[in-house]
């Protein structure tokens, strides 16, 4: 399978700040790749370089085999969803999308089709009058209008309500399944990425810490989590934090998930009952499973930082 995006040893600085520092990345055709990392990790700079919006200081960027800075023609095959998009504000929603149809040379009927696909019915409203959520839906419709082979999305769901977010994820999966559309998605919302992505690149301080198919990453980093179902998850978490081999804890209303130092998972089975006795909690169950994407992310970051 060929790579639609190839980034090799990318460097980009803004003044003295190194936004991207030797980043390399490949997105294979037909994959849904997630780009995760903290704020300032270099995700947006990488995406901008891939889109040809900025010129790298050094390194190579190839999208569909071409340098995106010099070959705007490749954008016929790319759909873009920015975190915060601005469109010519005084156009009406449907009119502007019809214009976009003419830009790409697709039938104008496609405008209505994509608006229905994203559940946006404010056809006659001016773009400046759309709410943040509506604008994001409009942007998604805008990105889909020419049936692109590759969709690059920077925080595509940040302004959507939970229902619209679920619909977007379903839409991504549908496009991937039906049209083999390739996605590169940057997002902070890790559960949403874990639902759709089949591969992942974890970025920190301008370089890729780990990348590859998600299953491989979980295996490579032995990212397992122990799940304790209990009636006092918060109190349990406080006690677990004191254990030296516990790396990360997350709680919900029904229990605690723990990522331990590699190979230390069995220790939980000894320590959990002691904690339960100490805080007078009831343990409903303890099971070893796969860590969440968030837990994998923190594990990779810790390991790479040598902690």
């Amino acid at each position: 399978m060929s790579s639609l995006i190839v980034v090799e040893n990318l460097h980009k600085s803004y003044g003295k700040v190194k936004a991207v520092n030797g980043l390399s990345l490949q997105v294979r055709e037909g994959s849904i790749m997630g780009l995760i990392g903290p704020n300032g990790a270099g995700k947006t700079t990488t995406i901008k370089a891939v889109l040809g919006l900025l010129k790298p200081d050094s390194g190579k960027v190839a999208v569909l085999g071409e340098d995106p800075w010099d070959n705007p023609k490749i954008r016929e095959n790319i759909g873009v969803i920015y975190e915060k998009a601005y469109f010519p504000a005084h156009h009406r929603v449907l009119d502007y999308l019809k214009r976009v149809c003419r830009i790409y040379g697709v039938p104008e009927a496609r405008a209505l089709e994509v608006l229905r696909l994203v559940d946006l019915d404010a056809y006659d409203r001016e773009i400046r009058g759309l709410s943040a959520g509506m604008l994001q839906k409009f942007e998604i419709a805008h990105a889909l209008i020419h049936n692109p082979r590759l969709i690059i999305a920077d925080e595509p769901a940040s302004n959507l309500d939970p229902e619209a977010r679920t619909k977007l994820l379903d839409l991504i999966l549908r496009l991937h399944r039906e049209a083999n559309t390739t996605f590169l998605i940057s997002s902070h919302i890790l559960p949403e990425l874990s639902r759709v992505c089949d591969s992942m690149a974890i970025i920190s301080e301008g370089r890729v810490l780990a990348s590859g198919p998600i299953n491989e990453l979980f295996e490579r980093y032995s990212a397992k989590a122990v799940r304790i179902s209990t009636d006092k998850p918060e109190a349990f978490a406080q006690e677990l934090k004191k254990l030296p081999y516990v790396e990360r804890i997350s709680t919900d209303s029904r229990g605690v998930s723990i990522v331990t130092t590699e190979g230390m998972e069995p220790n939980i089975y000894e320590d959990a009952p002691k904690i339960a006795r100490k805080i007078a909690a009831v343990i409903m169950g303890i099971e070893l499973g796969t860590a969440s994407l968030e837990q994998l992310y923190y594990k990779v970051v810790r390991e790479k930082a040598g902690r």
Partner: protein
Amino acid sequence: MEKPKGKPFLEILAASIHEDFRFPILEVFAFLYAISTFVLVQIGGGYTLSIAGSEESLAYSLVSIQMGTPLFIFLILIFKNVAYGFGSDLEKGTIQTLLAYPIKRHMILTAKMLSAIGISLAMFLGIQFFALYLIAPQTVANHMPIVITAYLASLSYPLLITAIMLLIAMKVRKGGTALVLGIVLYFAISMASGILTILYIFTGNATPLKILAIIQPSTALQFHYTQIGTLISQGQIETWTPSFSEALTYIAGGYCLVAAAYLISYYYFSRRLNI
């Protein structure tokens, strides 16, 4: 099957015109152009006829009097379009959306400039020529090269300031700041022009004025036709009365500056500007 061909340039141009001249901007400015042009023709026409010596200077004077206020309105319109149109696109990020389309960067800039400057210029010149043909059809018909030269000389300076404002807008990425800096620059050069003319009258040294004439070639044409030096100094100091061909050289020089400023803007936008 080959993909159908889109028309990104025409559509971006149409979208820019829609944004730059949305109702009632076009209507208001057309009204202002028309009113100012015809009022100036009424006031200035008779005066021009009374002072102009030759037919040629009559044609020149007619154009320069008729152009005064409309040229300033033209300037406001193109400043608004470049600073608030293009500057705000950069500031807010609309340019990112345009750059997602399959079109070269310089074509996006051309579409933007055609909308910002081209439409304004067509409206300005259309009303101006219409008025000229109404007031003095024979003079205009007989001296068309002089009329065109007068317009060329007067338009190079606003176009130069607009190109500089475009560069500022790209650099600072703030429409408001670009607008303010452009207006300050415009008035600074206008004031310098006035000061240099006064200096010339008192000292007789025309060198600074000649330098100014490259930026503002209308100065050279003005001195060619009205011979201010001769009138005021009454032959006591060296006068600068450029020949018509010399004035044309200044106009050519002025347009070289304009072209250079736009080329730098195009180069910067196409090859250097990181969004």
